[in-house]
């Protein structure tokens, strides 16, 4: 079995929150990434602080990872509940390692026990239990122990007196674990040699990539209110957005957050906040003000399960309708929905540029499943980020701030401290900002606000196999699993095509043309209502959803089955398309 090379393994650590599950997956991921593999981590945990069923997994692959996979090759169960809860996910020749210090399983199964705590003690380092387990996992997947040694050396070389001892005990722990696995006789195969990328990489989570992208584009004002899964962006900003001319702060509510970024955006700053569904709901009125008074600002919605407090630490894409129309009245907000950790960086930067360019609010829709997912991605080229800054009014006083939109383009924005003092007005106004209800002003200003969205046509799109029986068009964090499904369906000879747009609103012209042409668009999305396909139908395109509302991301295999079945339905026996 062990000379059986595999391109890809999923390893899951399951137990209770607070047991270091994430640390284990992260260590495994970093060791593999350093060795030249592509990795992606994914965790689920309950909302409680300590305890409660939790798991953290890593997918290690010889090519870039698109999803968290279909099944698990190695399951590490720290307690019996975890074993029972996750064993269904094991692949046919998957192997479970269970914590025999905690519970026993009857003989004869595809599993073996290991008392990691006891073995760690024997190394003299009780904190090395994770490494015992990792050693066992490494043996099962044929991953070189020397690569893990290298990781351990790098991790624990901290210039402290005890470093060497810690490194040695961890290395010992790795070998103790590997020995137990070897004695068990099990193996799940051997990881094929890596095909390392020819470009430089970084290891980063979706939320950190998004924050870094935004700061690269010049965000210099951030406020937020803690909420899963957006809190890590607040924490990141508080830590990193320091120094003269920058401000990051925790405020008292999402109402304060949106109001403050509107105030700062009005005053000339590149301002941003991040939240999740409950906070987004509170921001509706403030987003309307930014739209109405034409003030640049960026709101990140890291989606979780909703409505109400919903599922704070689960995957769902159900905020789309709210993001499209967060406030009352004739308004909408441009939306970027990154579909990978790499795109989180891109979207963070582009959102800031968009806000500056069209002078208004932008929403970035991320999602729990990609927020804390750690991946080794191509190192972003900071010099390639084109940093845009709003056009600022430099004329004399007595300026009609809301005047021009036409041959002269969008009127430059006066900034307090400079010329052109005006009232940025959330009530309907005339060209100088004075409140008015007169129809001609309301008509002109309404049209101006929508029309300037036409400046936002440059987010990246993907169009492949146009003219297929069905076009798959996922969005946001479901892009990865949908892409994996698409590739498998193609390999199986199913007649499907691929559409992807990081911008959901407005849709790029080229994407609209492709949608126009499509026989039918199938939208994999994580919500009950089929929100994106509803929007596409509203635009006049033929679209339907493949939905899932489990709180978990899609498995590619699920999508393969469901899309293949649907495509088969869509074709007659003669192979002509019915739709």
């Amino acid at each position: 079995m062990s000379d059986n090379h595999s391109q890809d393994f999923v390893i899951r650590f399951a137990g209770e929150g607070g047991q270091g599950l994430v640390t284990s997956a992260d260590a495994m991921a970093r060791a593999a990434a350093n060795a030249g593999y592509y990795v992606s981590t994914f965790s689920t945990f309950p909302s409680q602080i300590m305890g409660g069923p939790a798991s953290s997994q890593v997918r290690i692959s010889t090519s870039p990872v698109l999803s968290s996979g279909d099944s698990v090759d190695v399951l590490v169960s720290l307690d019996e509940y975890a074993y029972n809860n996750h064993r269904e996910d094991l692949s046919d020749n998957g192997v479970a390692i269970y914590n025999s210090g905690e519970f026993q399983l009857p003989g004869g199964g595809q599993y073996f026990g290991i008392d990691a705590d006891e073995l760690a003690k024997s190394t003299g380092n009780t904190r090395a239990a994770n490494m015992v387990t990792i050693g066992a996992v490494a043996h099962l997947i044929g991953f070189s122990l020397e690569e893990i040694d290298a990781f351990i050396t790098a991790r624990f070389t901290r210039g402290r007196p005890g470093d060497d001892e810690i490194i040695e005990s961890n290395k010992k722990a790795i070998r103790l674990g590997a020995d137990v696995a070897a004695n068990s006789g099990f193996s799940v195969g051997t990881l094929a040699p890596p095909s390392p990328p020819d470009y430089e990489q970084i290891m980063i989570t979706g939320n950190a990539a998004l924050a870094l992208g935004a700061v690269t584009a010049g965000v210099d004002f951030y406020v937020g209110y803690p909420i899963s899964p957006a809190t890590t962006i607040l924490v990141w900003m508080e830590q990193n957005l320091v120094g003269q001319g920058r401000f990051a702060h925790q405020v008292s509510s999402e109402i304060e957050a949106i109001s403050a970024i509107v105030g700062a955006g009005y005053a000339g700053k590149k301002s941003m906040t991040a939240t999740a569904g409950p906070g987004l709901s509170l921001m509706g009125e403030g987003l309307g003000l930014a739209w109405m008074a034409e003030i640049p600002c960026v709101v990140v919605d890291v989606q979780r399960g909703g409505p109400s407090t919903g599922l704070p630490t689960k995957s769902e894409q159900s905020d789309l309708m709210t993001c499209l129309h967060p406030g009352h009245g004739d308004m909408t907000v441009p939306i970027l929905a990154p579909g990978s950790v790499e795109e989180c960086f891109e979207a963070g930067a582009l959102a800031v540029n968009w806000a500056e360019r069209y002078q208004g609010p932008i929403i970035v829709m991320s999602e729990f499943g990609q927020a804390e997912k750690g991946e080794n991605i191509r190192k972003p080229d900071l010099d390639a980020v084109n940093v845009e800054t709003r056009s600022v009014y430099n004329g004399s006083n007595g300026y009609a701030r809301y005047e021009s939109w036409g041959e002269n383009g969008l009127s430059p924005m006066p900034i307090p401290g400079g010329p052109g003092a005006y009232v940025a007005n959330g009530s309907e106004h005339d060209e100088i900002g004075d409140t008015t209800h007169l129809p001609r002003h309301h008509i002109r200003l309404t049209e101006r606000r929508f029309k300037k969205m036409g400046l936002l046509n440059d987010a990246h799109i993907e169009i492949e196999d146009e003219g297929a029986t069905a076009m798959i068009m996922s969005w946001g964090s479901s892009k990865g699993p949908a892409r994996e499904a698409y590739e498998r369906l193609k390999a199986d000879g199913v007649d499907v095509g691929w559409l992807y747009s990081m911008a959901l609103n407005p849709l790029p012209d080229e994407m609209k043309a492709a949608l126009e042409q499509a026989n039918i668009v199938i939208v994999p999305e994580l919500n009950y209502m089929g929100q994106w396909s509803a929007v596409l139908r509203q635009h006049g395109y033929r679209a339907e959803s493949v939905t899932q509302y489990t709180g978990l991301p899609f498995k590619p295999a699920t999508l393969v089955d469901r899309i293949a079945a649907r495509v088969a339905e869509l074709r007659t026996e003669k192979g002509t398309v019915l739709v």
Partner: protein
Amino acid sequence: MSNRNPEYDFVWCPGCGDFGVRRALEWALERHVAEHEIPQSNYVIVAGIGCSGNMVHLMEGDQPFGLHGIHGRTLPLSFGVKMGRPDLQAVVVAGDGDFLAIGGEHIGPAAARNVDVTCVVMDNGVYGLTKGQSSPTTEMGVTTSSTPYGKIESQMMPLKYYLTIGVSYIASHYSSKPRDLANVIQDAMNHKGFSIVHVQSPCTTYNDTYDILKGNRRKGIPGMAWEVPEDHDPSSRQSAEDLLGRPGIPLGLIYKDERPTLQDRVDEIAEANPRRTPADLLASYAL
């Protein structure tokens, strides 16, 4: 809007107290500009929604910048203006409903931050713009359109509330003495920190309190307003509490606590922690 715009939607009713407050604010701004040689364009008026907030459109003479946002959010909006651009002067104008009811949740945080913003609150004890409903400062028992059987909540005491939650500069005044009020507003603007000038600004249409405030000898009504005594020590919390224990409406400075502002603390952190460039940050994610 310095030259009256014939298409503008809003005018105050004759006799509205907000006229006097506007005059006072204009004078205060003028003098503050002259005193500090700051250009007028560095001033931002953040206005609430209500008759009072419309002041931002009705200022005469040189125009400051204005932000006329949404109901109740003047404090977080001005927080964004001021923390984003500490070089600007931010002045809030808002009504009692805007500031104390829907916007009440923001006063405590603003006080705790001691953000350097000056608020001119126009208290008419009623919701003017929505035509006469009760407000937090409407007296208990009073009949309004929304309290047809009399108001059944107690009246809020804003000055005591400000003192309790740590507002660092508290003054009280009324609209009938714009020259004195201008001095108080100017002084509040000179205070480094969060300052509130709480102004009794009668609503002639829904709650005409001129007689009650100023007194009317002919009708035999004693005035409620009284000057803060010269010997009052505004730096003493105890004195401020004692002062507010007296009935009526004090005119003048009640409390003033000179302590660091949020910006002072932010500057300290900025000094100790140099800017991190995107390249520095990116480097921390190297494999």
